[in-house]
């Protein structure tokens, strides 16, 4: 689904170029749940922008869904730490926003509005927000806003979901609730996920594969499969295998931070 080969990327910083990524390669299979972890500032968000075609690599090749990336990929949904819902739109209208942008929905938007609304209703139910479609974002808690943001990133049935620290601003309980929401949508709708996170437990609980990045300039220094049986239950977080895996990753990150 995603192939990055020998990518390097330099930003034009104020005091000369900043090398954010250097010799980064990563590959994510179709339907796979991949997690990317690494120290902050190592280029994780940059990686996300490269994959979605928002920026071009300085050198190297990016291909998504079998085709080289030259501009916005359009098959991806994105969600971030801030839900970024528009306060003048209801939850439903917020979730409809991508359909007003991306083809083929865009040109049929007026004609098929009822159908699209039904789709929103369906998604809201999957993430546990049924009945909240007519509320405004400010009437929702942070966790609920993040659920709505997840719906917005999924409404156009993307083949690829890019999540950049989506749960980082939530409290621990809400976060675990949303892990389960994400786990369930992913198992139901079968898209490919790239999840950037600081939370190693989150990565181990959700992902099939975990990629560890080095400090800037970022490259993938380790790729680790996680083989716990699915569907996973939150209880798995307290098993020895799980905590061991988290521990190993923790040491790895500590190492790269020192280096």
């Amino acid at each position, binding site marked *: 689904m995603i192939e990055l080969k020998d990518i390097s990327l330099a930003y034009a910083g104020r005091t000369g170029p900043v090398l954010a990524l250097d010799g980064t390669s990563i590959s994510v299979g179709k339907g796979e749940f991949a997690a990317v972890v690494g120290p902050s500032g190592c280029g994780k968000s940059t990686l996300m922008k490269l994959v979605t075609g928002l920026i071009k690599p300085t050198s190297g090749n990016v291909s998504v869904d079998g085709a080289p990336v030259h*501009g916005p990929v359009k098959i991806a949904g994105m969600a971030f730490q801030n839900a970024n819902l528009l306060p*003048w739109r209801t939850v439903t209208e917020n979730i409809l926003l991508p359909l007003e942008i991306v083809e083929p929905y865009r040109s049929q938007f007026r004609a098929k509005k009822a159908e699209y609304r039904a789709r929103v209703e369906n998604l809201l139910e999957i993430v546990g927000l049924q009945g909240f479609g007519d509320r405004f974002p400010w*009437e929702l808690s942070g966790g609920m806003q993040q659920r709505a943001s997840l719906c917005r990133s999924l409404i156009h049935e993307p083949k690829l979901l890019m999540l950049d620290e989506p749960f980082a601003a939530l409290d621990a309980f809400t976060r675990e609730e949303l892990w389960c929401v994400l786990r369930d949508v992913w198992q139901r709708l079968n898209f490919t996920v790239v999840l950037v996170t600081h939370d190693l437990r989150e990565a181990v609980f959700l992902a099939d594969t975990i990629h560890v990045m080095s400090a800037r300039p970022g490259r993938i220094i380790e790729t680790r499969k996680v083989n716990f049986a699915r569907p996973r239950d939150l209880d798995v977080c307290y098993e020895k295998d799980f905590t061991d895996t988290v521990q190993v990753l923790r040491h790895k990150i500590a190492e790269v931070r020192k280096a």
Partner: protein
Amino acid sequence: MNKQIESAAPWLFVVGLFVFWELACRLLSVPTIILPAPSAIFAAFQRFGGPIATNSFVTLWTTMAGFALSVVFGLILGLVVGWSRTIYRSFYPVMIGFNSIPKVAVVPILVMWFGIGEVPAILTAFLISFFPIVVNVATGLATIEPELEDVLRALGASKLDVMRKVGIPRSMPYFFGSLKVAITLAFVGTVVSETIAANKGIGFLMAQAGSNFQMPLVFAGLIALAIEGIVMYAATAWLEQRMTGWAFRSQGSAAA
């Protein structure tokens, strides 16, 4: 009960102020030429009711005309300036420079160009009041959350799409908020221009009355100005509430 007192308080305060003023003038026997008592001002209102009304109307419509120009040009220029960082950067110094010219200094030029009358007043009102609208609209556009822009751009949204769906609605509270400031400034602009060079308007009336030492009439003009100013401010504040209520309701309620 408390609510009633609270809503009556501003009126009580105004009445109290006038009573105090009246008493102070009488007890200290302040000469009318220095500070006329409210009763004298009221008498002037009665005597010159006609001229005060017609001149107030002139001031009102010239202010509104200048304000309307500001809204149109301010909105357009704000959208243009907020559109891209490059335009923002290149326009900004010029705009700051322009805005820092005291507009009083421009009135004589306008009079040379357009003659004595309403046109210089309208243009002064416009020149003095469009800047805050431009800045506010541009700020609203320029401060779109970059992540939200990324979400849309990754879907293939054009700059125009982002502006239509996010930028423009988002800048509306900034726009309507700036109208309160702009209308006040437009009013100042009109009156300044009328005071310097005009043959109509409250500013003109006051300048005339002043040179004839008719202090009660000068103060009657002042009070007419205050009333007009309050009404126009209240109208734009009401409009702001009506148009962008969501911005008020959403404030500080984004609980995590």
